[in-house]
């Protein structure tokens, strides 16, 4: 007990004694304020659960997600050994959901890596350098923003070919412009602040100022925005799957599962509803997490 007490005191000190200590203490204080937000903790809990389920899919899944049993098609909920029933080819829906978590995480992870980083790069360079660079980059952003998102993604997938990688690429290419706009707006306010003037007076170059001084301040609002957008990304991926342009059968992608279940939605509603509920839950979890992160990461909150 006293051990944990001293560790806590060590982390909460106002007088850190080393670089590592200062970093850990800042992280711990962020965690404390995040932990006090119940809804955000629920969101985090659901997502941690999702990651665990995806990692342990072979152990957790009661059946092979690809094994067909045409004699037992469209079994209802809670039927023998099929908790969520079976789909039109007699495949166990629960197992497909569990394996589908992997695909969902894969899509979400890749898009979350590509789109914000591209947006951050374009936005901060545009905002800091200004002049004609700003004009060119922002007009390109406008062109991407002018297209409806799903239509543009459809065009990309049509050009690149259907498949999960291309769906990720298409979603990323349509998702970056809002991040670029946010990053640019933040950069414009940061650029004129005294601490940027101060580092300019030390002879720092544009590259150092953008990467070391502007990025750390933009990243927090981007992370928040990404988590809030995650729901949209999952839905876009599901939408592409639904249209048959994302994950290809027999891959258990949640959107594709809904699309398949749509044909029997009146008589066998659970085939489409169960994956729909899964998408809803994960989207909600990301939204809750995003709300909580905004409270922790907002740089003005630290003042």
């Amino acid at each position, binding site marked *: 007990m006293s051990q944990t007490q001293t560790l806590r005191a060590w982390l909460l000190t*106002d*007088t*850190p*004694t*080393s*670089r590592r*200590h*200062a970093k850990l203490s*800042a992280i711990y204080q962020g965690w404390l304020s995040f932990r006090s937000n119940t809804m955000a903790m629920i969101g985090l809990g659901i997502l941690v659960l999702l990651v665990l389920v995806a990692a342990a899919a072979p152990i957790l899944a009661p059946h092979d997600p690809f094994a067909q049993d045409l004699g037992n098609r469209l079994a209802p909920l809670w039927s023998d050994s099929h908790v969520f029933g079976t789909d039109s080819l007699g495949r166990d829906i629960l197992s497909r959901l569990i394996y589908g978590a992997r695909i969902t995480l894969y899509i979400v992870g890749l898009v979350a890596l590509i789109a914000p980083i591209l947006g951050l790069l374009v936005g901060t360079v545009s905002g800091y350098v200004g002049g004609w660079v700003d004009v060119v980059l922002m007009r390109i952003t406008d062109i991407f923003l002018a297209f409806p998102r799903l239509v543009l993604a459809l065009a990309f997938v049509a050009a690149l070919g259907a498949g999960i990688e291309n769906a990720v690429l298409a979603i990323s290419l349509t998702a970056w412009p809002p991040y670029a706009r946010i990053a640019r707006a933040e950069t414009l306010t940061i650029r004129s*602040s*005294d*601490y940027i*003037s*101060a*580092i*300019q*007076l*030390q*002879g*720092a170059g544009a590259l*150092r100022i953008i990467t*070391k*001084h502007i990025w*750390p*301040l933009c990243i927090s609002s981007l992370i928040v925005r990404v988590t809030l957008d995650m729901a949209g990304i999952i839905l876009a991926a599901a939408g592409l799957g639904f249209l048959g342009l994302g994950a290809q059968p027999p891959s258990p992608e949640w959107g594709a599962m809904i699309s398949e279940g749509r044909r029997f939605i009146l008589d066998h509603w659970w085939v489409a509803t169960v994956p729909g509920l899964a998408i809803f839950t994960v989207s909600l979890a990301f939204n809750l997490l995003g709300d909580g992160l905004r409270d922790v990461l907002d*740089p003005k909150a*630290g*003042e």
Partner: protein
Amino acid sequence: MNMLEINGLNVWFGTARDRVDAVKGATFDVAKGQSFGLVGESGSGKSTILRAITGLAPTWSGSIKVAGETVEHKRHKSFFKTVQMVFQDPYASLHPRHSVDQVLGETLHLHGFKDIDNRVVKLLDDVGLGQKFRFRYPHQLSGGQRQRVAIARALAPEPTLLLLDEPTSALDVSVQAEILNLLADLRAEHGLTYLMVSHDLSVVGHMCDRLAVMKDGEIVEIMDVAALQGMQAKHPYSRQLLEASV
């Protein structure tokens, strides 16, 4: 020898119809080791002169000489080893996500120093902050402590000319005196030359040897502090300013 010579300096913002002339034909010089004050009301162009010297206000004409060398519009890195600036608001001049150690360490790194750890320790001692402040973030510091960090940052490259942009106006009165005494001590210790902007005549009277009074972007009078204390201002505006501050 003059540390700083300014001749016919004009600074403006915007172009054509939106153009605002912030400084018009400013001319003065500051001898080495001297402390020179710029006083005047808000918007009279005091701070703009400092920003033009450092290059933060890029649109200027006229001549600026630092230590006998003419300053070009594009400043060489060595310029920043000679001239440094302390900003007005210590709440805005420190990066909110960088610890004191990072702020000073990066500055030293940029100026090519090798023994960064030792120098950070020494800088903190110089400005009267102990080692316990080294790894704190700005939000863990008071206004006076932040301004000490900003002063340490300005001293890091070992400059000879320090530009002070109302360094105490954002602080409360008791802390103001501490910072002013610190600045006076540092000047004596390091043989610094100060160019100090203030709207507070008593601060200038305490800190400076000579001063210039500015109004609407023009210098209306340059006088000694002795003249200031003897209330011997010649120009009607400076006389008005003096009487108002008594």
